[in-house]
C-alpha cells in the first residue's frame, strides 16, 4: 500500500474510531445508571 493512501486511510480511521471510543467512554462515565448513590442516611 502506498504511503499517501496509508496516511489518508489511517487518518480517517483514527478520526472516526477515536470519536466513537471517546463518545462511548463519556457516555459510560455519565450514564445515570452508573451513578453511585450515597448510602442511605449518609446525607444529613
Amino acid at each position: 500500500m502506498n504511503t499517501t493512501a496509508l496516511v489518508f486511510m489511517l487518518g480517517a480511521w483514527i478520526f472516526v474510531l477515536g470519536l466513537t471510543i471517546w463518545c462511548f467512554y463519556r457516555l459510560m462515565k455519565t450514564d445515570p445508571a452508573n451513578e453511585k448513590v450515597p448510602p442511605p442516611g449518609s446525607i444529613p
Partner: protein
Amino acid sequence: MSDKPREQWGSRIGLILAMAGNAVGLGNFLRFPRQAVENGGGTFMIPYFVAFLLVGIPLMWIEWGVGRHGGLRGHGSVPGMFESLWKNPVAKYLGVLGIFMPLVVLIYYCYIESWTLAWTFFSATGATQGLDQQGMRSFLSSYQNLGDASVHSMWTPFLFFVITLGINIWVVSKGLMGGIEKLAKIGMPILFIFAAILVIRVLSLPAHAVADAVGCVGAAAGTCGPADGLNFMFTPDWSKLGNAKVWLAAAGQIFFTLSVGMGSLQAYASYLKKKDDMTLSGLATCATNETAEVVLGGSLAIPAVVTFFGVTGAVAISKAGGFDLGFVAMPLVFNQLPGGQIMTVAAGVMWFGLLFFAGITSSVSMATPVMSFMEENFGWTRKQSGLGIGALALLLGFLHIVFYQGGFLDEWDYWAGTFGLVILALVETILFVWVFGPENMWRELHEGASLQLPRFFKFVMTYITPVFLLVMMGWWTVTEAIPTLMMEGKPESEHAVRWASRGVMLGILVVQLLLIRAAWKRRRARGEVVA
C-alpha cells in the same frame, strides 16, 4: 393529541443503537465506497469530514432537538413538531414532508431490503455458486424483471417482499422498547460482528491473478491484492479538491448516510425525556455510523472486488451501480474465496445478512413517524397503525415490483429519497434555529446534556449549516432536479410508468395533507389550542 402516556426508551444504549441503526443502512456499504472512488479517493475524505462537521453533526443535533421539543408537547411526528416551534397555521402543512418522505421511502426501501433477505437465502442454499459474471448478472436481472423467468419464478420477489414487510410490521407493532429497541440491540451487534469478520477475511486475502492488473502493485506478475483496493480507495487525487461537484457529492453522502432530513430521527427523539442527554448521544450516533461507513464499508467491497477483478474491473463494476457491486460482484468474490464451499456460503450469508440488518434497522424507523401521527391524531392503536401502514406498503410495494424496470422506483428514490431530504432539512433548520431562535435552540439542546458543546457549533448551526443546505438545494435543482423532472436521457418507453409513479406520490402527499387538516380539526373540536 392523544391522552395516552407516550412510550419511552428503555435505556440510553438502546436509544443510541436504534438511532445508529436508523442511520447505518445499505448506503454505508454500497454507496460510500463508490462515491469515494469516483470523487478523488483519499481527497474525498477531506470534503467528506468537513461536511460531517458542518452539516452532518449539526443536523443530527437539530433533529434530536426538534424531536424532543415536539415529543414533550405530545407530538411524535413532524407536523406537530413544527407547529410547536412556529405558531403559524402553515407550520403543520410544511411538516407533511416529515410523514410523506419516510412513508414513501419505507415502501421502496422494504423492496430493496427484501433483495438482501432473498440473497441471504440464495447464499445459504448455494444458488449463486458456480455462476460466472454473466450468470450472476442474469440471476439479478431475472429477479428484478418479472418478464424474465429464466432464473426465478415471477412470484419469488413478491414472496421475499411480503416476508420482509411482515417482519418490519411485526417489529414496529411490538412498540418502542419491545420491538424497535430490542431489534437494535440484537441487529446492530450482529451487523458489526459480520462486517468485522468479513473485513478481516478480505484484507488477509492473498494477491490473485486478474485479467487486467493495471494499477496494481503486482501488475508485472498480473496480480492484484486487497492493498491495491485500499490504494484505489484512499490515494488522493488533488485535482478533485477544487471541484465543487466533489464537495457536493461529499455533502450528499454525509446527508444520506446519517439519515437526516427524513423525519425518522425526530420521531425517535420524540420519545426522549426532558432531562435526557442529546448532545453526547447525538454525537455517538454520528460516530457509530461513521465507523460502520469509513472503517467497515470502506474496507469491504472495493478491496474485495479489486483483488478479483483488478482496478479496471472494479471501475467498470462501480460505474454499473451499487446493486451490481453488492449483488453481482460480491457473490462472485465469495465464489472464489479460498476455503471452499463452506467459506462461500458463510461469507455470502454474512454479507447479505449484514445488509439485511442494516436495512431493517433503518426501515422500522421510517414506519415510526406515520404510525405516531395516526396514533396521536386519530386514536389508532400501535397494532392498527402497524397493520394499516403494512397494508398500504404491500399494495404500493407491488407496483415497485411490477414496474421496477420502467423506473417506478427511481422516481420515488429521487424525489422523496434524495431531493426531498434537503428541503425538509432546510425547513427544519430555519424553524428550529431562526424562528424558534438561536438562544432557545442552544438552551433546548443543552437541557440535560452530558456534553457542553463549543459555542462554535452555535455559529455553525445558525449560519453555516443553512447556507450549506441552500447551496446544495440550488445546485441539485439546476443539475439534477430539472433534468430529472424533464426526464432527460430517459427512454420514451419509460415515460408513462414514470409519470404514473409521480402521480401515486402526489396522491400520497395530497391524502396526507388532508389527514393533517382533519387531525387539526379534531384537535380544535377537543378544545386544544392549535395554530
